[in-house]
Each structure stands twice: as structure tokens, then as C-alpha cells.
């Protein structure tokens, strides 16, 4: 009897393990394959390269994870980032600290615009963020006059992008910081719990007395906040900003979140998932770079990965339905 129970437990554990960690397995396998193919891949300096490369879209991916768990979608992240980048560089003359604070407020405000229209008014997230994507992009272009903005190469601001603490690059530390805070919010706070409930079953959430509109609005503000952080890090790294540089990150952010297994239906997902998605995308991109795959092919391969991730996402959901 106890034997049978043990076997059942083991099976249950294995089932859970596979459904939760299958992407982590893929990550390990891809890492091993890359290390075998190229001896330049598995080195400390390349690891830092890879992590620094993922830090920008990684920070935003954590923000987007909140939005998607809440059942939403945010296509405007790239544009919010562009707008924040222009802002943080243009405000440099007024002081580093001031520019950072205002940029964070700007990111939160941009997210709030999405949040109010989607959460409070109840408009469709896809259409709203598609529109605000264009709106914020236009704002960035007008704000910058259409030109690249250069920062002061000697400003202490640049430490955020290029400095390091005890040998670890600052962007990587910020990525880890955002990760820990996000994880904590999701699993240890009342807000996190209410967010999962809202994303899983909005009607039930409302009946439970949860102010779902506030919850949904908050997720877009969190997303806007992470866009601002990513913008600050990237501007500091480049000591400049382009009014359109955020756009290219949209794709990577979505791929990382979906690859990690956060389902687009809402209510499911975690920071652990997203970090695995970020690392997997990072390893693949980095590996392709090390192997000197041309840019067009890199894009193509990433596109294929996103499609596969979406297929896997639907497959898992179908299987849950069938259960």
C-alpha cells in the first residue's frame, strides 16, 4: 500500500515537474549544445556579455509578465521605452537624480494611460496599446525633434549602464533586483494574489469584492515602470538615445515571456518562468552571435522560436482543458 502511494506521489511529482520545468530542461540542453559547438560560449566573459544583452529586454519582460498574468497585453512597451530614453538624456543637464526620477514618473504615467483606458474604461488591450504604441512613439519623435540625443560621456549617470559592482555589471544587478522584487510581489503580497485571481476569472474576482479595474490598471503601470528602468539602463550604456530604439525590444520581450510559459489567457505564469524564457532567448541569440549567424537569419530563427512557443502554449492549455 505504502509502496503504491509512493509511486503515485512520484508520478504526480514527475508530472508537475515536467509541466513546470520543461522549458528549463530545454534551456539546459541548448546551453550544453552551444558549449559543445563553440568553445567561446561557456566562458565567464561571454556569460556576462549574454546577461548584459538580456538585461534590457529582461527588465521589461518582468513588467510584461504582470500585464499578461492579469489577462492583458501591452504592445506599447517599446514606445514607452523610447520616450523615456529621450527624456532621461534631455533632462541630464538638470541633474542625474532628477532626470531618473522624472523618467520613472513618465514611465508610470504612460502605463497609467494604458491602464485607465483598458482597466477602468474596459477597452480592448490589443487595440489600445497598439494605438498608444504609435502615440508614444510620435511623442518621442516630437520630444527629440527627430534627432538622436547625446549624453555627457563623463557623467556619473553612465555608471548605470557601464559600471560594475564587485565585478558584476550594474545592468545585471538591476535585472536581478527587478526579478527579486517582482517575484516577491507576485507570491507574497495581497496585490499579487488578487492579480492571479483577476487574470484567472475576472467575474469571480469582481464577485469576491476585488477592484479588478485597479488591479488591471496597476499592471500597466508596473509595465510602464519597467520600461522606464530599461530606458535608463540602455541610455546610460549608450550615453545617447534614439527616438526609435525601443521598438526592436518589443519582440524580444514578448518572446521571452511566452517562451517561459506564461500563458496569454491570463492567470498563469511566474517570474521563474520569465527568467527561464529570458535566459533561453539570451543563450540562443548569444550562441548565434558567437557562431556569426547573419542578422536576417537570427531574426528568422527568433521568429520560429516565438511561433513554437505559442504553439506549445496552446498545446498545454488544450491539454488542461482535456483533463
Amino acid at each position, binding site marked *: 500500500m505504502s509502496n503504491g502511494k509512493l509511486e*503515485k506521489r512520484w*508520478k*504526480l511529482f514527475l*508530472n508537475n515537474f515536467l509541466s513546470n520545468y520543461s522549458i528549463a530542461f530545454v534551456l539546459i540542453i541548448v546551453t550544453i549544445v552551444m558549449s559543445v559547438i563553440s568553445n567561446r560560449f561557456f566562458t565567464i566573459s561571454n556569460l556576462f556579455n549574454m546577461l548584459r544583452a538580456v538585461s534590457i529586454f529582461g527588465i521589461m519582460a518582468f513588467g510584461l509578465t504582470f500585464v499578461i498574468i492579469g489577462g492583458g497585453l501591452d504592445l506599447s512597451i517599446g514606445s514607452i521605452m523610447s520616450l523615456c530614453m529621450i527624456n532621461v538624456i534631455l533632462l541630464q543637464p538638470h541633474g542625474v537624480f532628477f532626470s531618473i526620477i522624472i523618467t520613472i514618473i513618465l514611465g508610470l504615467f504612460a502605463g497609467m494611460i494604458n491602464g485607465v483606458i483598458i482597466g477602468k474604461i474596459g477597452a480592448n488591450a490589443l487595440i489600445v496599446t497598439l494605438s498608444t504604441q504609435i502615440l508614444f512613439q510620435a511623442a518621442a519623435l516630437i520630444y527629440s525633434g527627430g534627432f538622436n540625443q547625446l549624453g555627457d560621456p563623463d557623467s556619473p549617470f553612465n555608471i548605470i549602464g557601464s559600471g560594475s559592482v564587485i565585478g558584476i555589471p550594474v545592468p545585471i544587478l538591476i535585472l536581478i533586483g527587478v526579478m527579486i522584487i517582482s517575484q516577491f510581489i507576485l507570491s*507574497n*503580497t*495581497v*496585490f*499579487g*494574489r*488578487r492579480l*492571479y*485571481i483577476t487574470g*484567472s*476569472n475576472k*467575474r*469571480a*474576482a*469582481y*464577485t*469576491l*469584492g*476585488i*477592484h479588478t479595474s485597479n488591479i488591471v490598471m496597476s499592471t500597466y503601470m508596473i509595465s510602464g515602470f519597467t520600461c522606464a528602468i530599461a530606458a535608463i539602463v540602455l541610455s546610460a550604456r549608450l550615453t545617447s538615445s534614439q527616438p526609435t530604439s525601443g521598438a526592436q525590444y518589443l519582440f524580444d520581450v514578448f518572446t521571452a515571456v511566452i517562451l517561459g510559459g506564461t500563458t496569454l489567457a491570463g*492567470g*498563469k505564469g511566474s517570474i521563474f518562468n520569465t527568467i527561464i524564457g529570458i535566459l533561453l532567448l539570451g543563450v540562443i541569440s548569444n550562441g548565434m552571435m558567437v557562431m556569426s549567424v547573419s542578422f536576417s537569419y537570427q531574426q528568422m530563427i527568433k521568429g520560429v522560436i516565438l511561433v513554437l512557443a505559442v504553439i506549445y502554449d496552446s498545446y498545454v492549455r488544450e491539454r*488542461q482543458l*482535456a*483533463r
Partner: protein
Amino acid sequence: MISNLTQGIDMGINKYVLQMNNISKNFPGVKALENVSFNLFKSEVHALVGENGAGKSTLIKILSGLYQKDRGDIFIDDAEINIEGTRHAIELGISTIYQEIALVEEITVAENIFLSDRPKTNRGLIDWKKMKSRAEDILNTFSSEKIEPGEKVQDLSVARKYFVEIAKALIHKSKIIIMDESTASLSEAEINMLYDTIKTLKNQGISIIYISHRLDEIFEIADRVSVLRDGKLIKTVNVSETNKDELIKYMIGRDISEMYGKGYKYEKDVIFKVENFSSEGVFENISFELHRGEILGFAGLVGARRTEIMRALFGLGKITSGKIFIEDKPVKIRNPADAVKHGIGFVSEDRRIEGLVTSMSVKENLTPLILDEISYLGLLKKGLESKIAQKSIKDFSIKTPSLNQLVMNLSGGNQQKVVMAKGLTIAPKILILDEPTKGIDVGAKAEIHRLIKDLAKKGMGMIIVSSEMPEILGVCQRIISIRNGRIVKIFNIEEANEEVLLKAAAGYL
């Protein structure tokens, strides 16, 4: 009547249309079915009964292709088959009509009937004329009720929707129709219509597996009945050779001498008062008082808008006028958050859509109303949460392998217990229960009734909406009869009985 119906069955001559031999199915941590054998004659109505979690749903889900069996054999017309999926089941002539009607509300009756394969013209376009006339023909074969094929499904009553489901089954030339809790949301008159339809289907040679919690129905329409308990087949008997008490004994494995007890006395002070509560076009001038420790029933037919009144009291739905007093203080309830704040608990009729987040754990479903109490500055005290959840599970004897089990894996009765336990975490002054035992088996029902009485004894005011007369008469002290969104009469339990309540509900009072 029973003899009339069973006449068609002659065990010697009749062939099995379906044989399920020694079927077993395991889920992680649960033996859902263990060596269950079930068979079905041609033109037979075979009822399947058992408590929630007994394995009825699993058995029919295997038959309808939703689940795969682990062990056992299935024969249809003496040929062994392996049901590969829902589509395959339909091709094999097995149609299932679930409790939650699965029609597309926005399109017409005819389009729903021919949802998967529509009649085509020579040019490959949809042949609307043929579709309409065939839909009409098929509806006429079993239903005396006139249903327009061109009507949109959303405009139909629940009973009529049910007939559309049956028509859908017939289009697929089904030999076996599985009806899962078909009468749970039908009114008396509609149930009688359904009985007539079942008789017609029988005469056409169709076999029916009939799942119900209402034992009276089984004696009305079934030929044989099989009882499941804890995943095992307890007995299969001819309906004419058994009775209700015996079936209940088989179902729960023990005698229950008294399913419904007598009412208790409530206190004098009013804790909840509603005055001239109205919502234009929905209900009007609802006024009543609820005393401390009272169980107040709302009786009426399906569609009398009792649910709408309860939802409005909980802040779900628009109100045009009216006042609410809690312990003599006027309160405003604009949304469920307000209601919860004022100490009103609500257990919704539709637990799967509104009462639960089925994709989340038992623990997470027990505590959402008290998150503010079990946290400090927005941070959850997880240890305290687990303790509270553990206590609820024990107090309500919720059967779950762990706190972290997903609610979707629990049986209906246990899910309902989770909903109730959650509602009580806020220690409400007033608890509104909308159809608290809908689709729940006898054992769990008795448990919930006992619980309701215990809570009332402790001074909680209870409001119960129920379409089951015995339930209303068994647990309530006063009964408000509702018809068309208005109060017909308020009865004391001494003057109420099934007859007067029915008369009031139907408008003959």
C-alpha cells in the same frame, strides 16, 4: 406508469447496445473508477446515480471521449471499440448533453443543430432552406413544443435549448444519448415536457443514460438504475424492484433516517431590512425583514427573478430605488466589495463561473475574502493563511489531497463546500445562498443543510433561494414566494406546504 414504461424492456430478446466491462480510471491521487461494469439495452433508460465524486462524471466522460480509460473493455453493438475522442464518440452514435448547455447563443436553432456538418448545395454553399426544413423535421419528431428553426438560441428558454441539444444528437444518428443532470435548471412544467420527449426517444429505439440527483425522477422515467459509490459499482437494479430509501442507502452506504430536520426559533431583532427594492423591468417593491438566526427562503419558479434580487442585494446589478438597513443602519451597496465590507456573504448559483477560480488551489480559493486580515502592509502572512485554510478544510470536511490541489480536480460537492467555506471566512452577519445544493448529491446535501442550521443557531441571518420545495420547506422558518419579480406572499412555515407554494409561484393565489 412505471410498468407502462418498462414494458418495452424484455431482457431475453433485447440486445445490449453498450457494454462497459471492468472500466478503471485513475487520476493523480484518486481512483476515480475501479472495475465498473455498466450496460445498456436498446430503448432503455438507464439511470446512473451516486454522490458527487462517486465516479458518474468520469464514467460518462470516458464514454463521450473526453477521458481515456486506463483498463477495461467497451463494446458497442457487440463490437469492441476504443473511443478515441469526442468526435469519434459522436460518430459511434454516442451523444452527451451536459448540464451546462453547450450551444452557440448568438446563432439560430437550425445553425446550432447543424453546427458541425451543414447541408450543402451543389455549388458547395450552405443550403439554408434544406437546413431549416431538416431542423424543423427533426424537432417535430420528438417535441410537441413549437421551436422556430430561425430563432436565435439566446431567445429560447432553458427547456427549449435542451430540446435543441437533443435535436443535435439526433442529427448525428445517435443510438445512445447521455443526459447529465438534465432537469437541474428546469421548472416543473418543463420537466414534464422532457419526460414526454424521453418516452418518444425510447419508442424510436434510442437508449438513454440518465444522470440525476433527483431520485423521484428516476422512478418516473428510468427502467434500470445503477448506483456508484467511491468509484465502484454498488448495484444495478430494475427500478420496479427498488425504492428511494434503498437507493439512498446504496449511495451513501448508511441509513439517513431524517434528511430534513425541523426548523429552529429565531430571535426578535432584525439584522437586515430591505425596503421597496426595485430594478426597473426586473423586480419591483421587494420589502422584507430578516431576523437574527433566521433562515428565510425564497421560493418560486425558475425565471421568477429571485437570483436577480439576490445579486442586486450583493451589489451585482442595477438598482433603481430602495433602501437596505443592516442592524437598523442604512447602508449603500454599490458593488460586491461594499457588500463584503458590511458583512454580507454570497454563495452564487453558478459556482464554476462566479464562485471559484478553478485553476487555482484550494487554499487560494478559501482565503480571497480575508486577504486584508491575513496580511500586514500588503504582505501575506502565508503561515497564517495555510492555518486558516487547513481549518476550513477540516470544519467543512472538504475532501482534498492537499491545500495546493487545484479546485478543478475536486468533485462538485467538494467545490461547493469550498465556496461556502470561503463565504464564511468573513464571519458574515448575513449569508445569501443561491441554490446551495444544485447538482449536489444526497449526502453532501444533508451536510450543507446541517451547516446552514448550525450557522443560523449561532445568530447568522440566512437567505436561501431554492427551486427544490423539500429543501425550502425543510430548512426555512419563513418563506417568501416570488413571481415575476414581485413578492406574492410571505409565509410562516406553519402555513406553508408544497401545494400553496406551487400555487403562489404559478399565480393562482
